[in-house]
């Protein structure tokens, strides 16, 4: 047993609620990490509320239910609720938005990606919304961060830094909602308590400076802030890739329209040697027109490229969603 594990064991033996949460965590092993995260926070908040209300920890735990039973309830909650299964208009609890992703990419025929909400959500996220949000996050973090650092010798510096960390956690949660909606990767519903503050109210009284210390020591505060800053270059790159692929695909997919309207598909100097354009059609005064023989292959190229782009969006969305999820469910050190 490592030193860290020994410390955890000693803490758990002193705090039955902590021990219960650890047992529940073990029962939920293998579950979706966001679901597991929420279950643990639900349990801890509930049990500490019960203790604050005067119950003993043991009584509160007995009323809450055995870890195996509660874990089963959470696992089963990924199905529809009673009486609503037929009429539910929205995915039921837990009907994890990323259920399709969890089934694996291989189970979907290649062209089926056109019907995947996660792929179109990824397109919208990486091609527009994610980039805009990244600019907003970065601007906010740099502005408040600079003010906080500049004002650190003054009394207002620390409150600004705390505002920045609190807002980073809030924005990270908001980002999680956006990512869940568009990229279909399930995010936790509960905020992770600030490390060290989760036991407040169970008899522990922390002073003002110790509370601030908890905020500053909590790795999630800094991970969220790092996300706000580091997201911009990543989002800029993904935005560029997405827009390039979408525009190129749309251009190729529009080939029948160009052909039908007798419009040039492109314009190039006759001797610029651009191989692709010279393959596409017949040049006339620098304008490149499609011929009857090339319009179908060009359209099919567009179809293939757009299908590939949607797969890329889906894959990127899956990976990106996991990163945001990891930030949200990171356990305090």
């Amino acid at each position, binding site marked *: 047993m490592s030193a860290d594990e020994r410390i955890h064991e000693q803490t758990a033996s002193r705090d039955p609620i902590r021990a219960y949460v650890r047992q529940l965590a073990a029962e939920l092993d293998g579950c979706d990490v966001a679901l597991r995260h*929420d279950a643990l926070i639900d349990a801890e908040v509930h049990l500490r509320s019960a203790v604050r*209300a005067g119950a003993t920890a043991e009584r509160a735990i007995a009323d809450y239910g055995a870890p195996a039973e509660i874990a089963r309830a959470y696992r089963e909650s990924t199905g529809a609720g009673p009486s609503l299964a037929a009429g539910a208009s929205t995915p039921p609890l837990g009907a994890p938005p990323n259920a399709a992703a969890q089934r694996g990419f291989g189970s979907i025929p290649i062209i089926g990606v056109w019907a995947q909400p996660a792929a179109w959500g990824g397109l919208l996220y990486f091609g527009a919304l994610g980039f805009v949000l990244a600019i907003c996050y970065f601007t906010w973090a740099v502005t408040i961060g600079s003010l906080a650092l500049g004002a650190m010798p003054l009394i207002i510096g620390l409150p600004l830094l705390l505002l920045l960390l609190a807002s980073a956690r809030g924005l990270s949660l908001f980002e999680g909602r956006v990512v869940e909606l568009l990229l279909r990767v399930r995010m936790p519903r509960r905020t992770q308590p600030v490390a060290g503050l989760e036991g407040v109210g169970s008899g522990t009284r922390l002073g003002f400076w110790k509370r601030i210390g908890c905020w500053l020591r909590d790795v999630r505060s800094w991970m969220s802030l790092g996300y706000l800053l580091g997201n911009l270059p990543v989002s800029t790159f993904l935005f560029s890739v997405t827009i390039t692929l979408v525009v190129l695909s749309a251009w190729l997919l529009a080939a029948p329209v160009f052909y039908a309207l007798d419009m040039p598909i492109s314009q190039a100097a006759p001797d610029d040697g651009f191989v692709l354009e010279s393959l596409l059609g017949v040049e006339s005064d620098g304008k490149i027109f499609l011929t009857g023989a090339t319009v179908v292959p060009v359209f099919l190229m567009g179809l293939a490229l757009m299908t590939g782009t949607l797969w890329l969006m889906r894959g990127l969305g899956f990976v990106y969603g996991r990163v945001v999820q990891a930030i949200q469910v990171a356990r305090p050190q």
Partner: protein
Amino acid sequence: MPSDLPNKIERDLSVGTAWLVVLATIAGADEPIHGYEIARRLADDAPEGLSFKQGTLYPMLRTMEADGLVRSTLVPSNEGPARKCFTLTADGKRVLAAWVATWRRTNRWVNTVLGEIDVR
């Protein structure tokens, strides 16, 4: 008779009724109500011999939220982590009203039938 049958009957019966009483408890609250308070009120009102494990309330609330029956807000607490407080949505109120009507009809029917039998 399978030895587990009475437990199974109780489990099956409690699933729907638990949803009903949870929705009704949220509807009856004057302001957004958090999970612990819902559990406390249900425990206070539960007849002797009938109990539910409070931890099962939270997955139920999550299902209700995903089904659009309740809406949650995080309310900061001075005593610990932020609490998730619940209110009924318009859909939730409609479902509850329909459910209450169904429950009352069913209750009358079951009582009528049970009133005429003599179980020895």
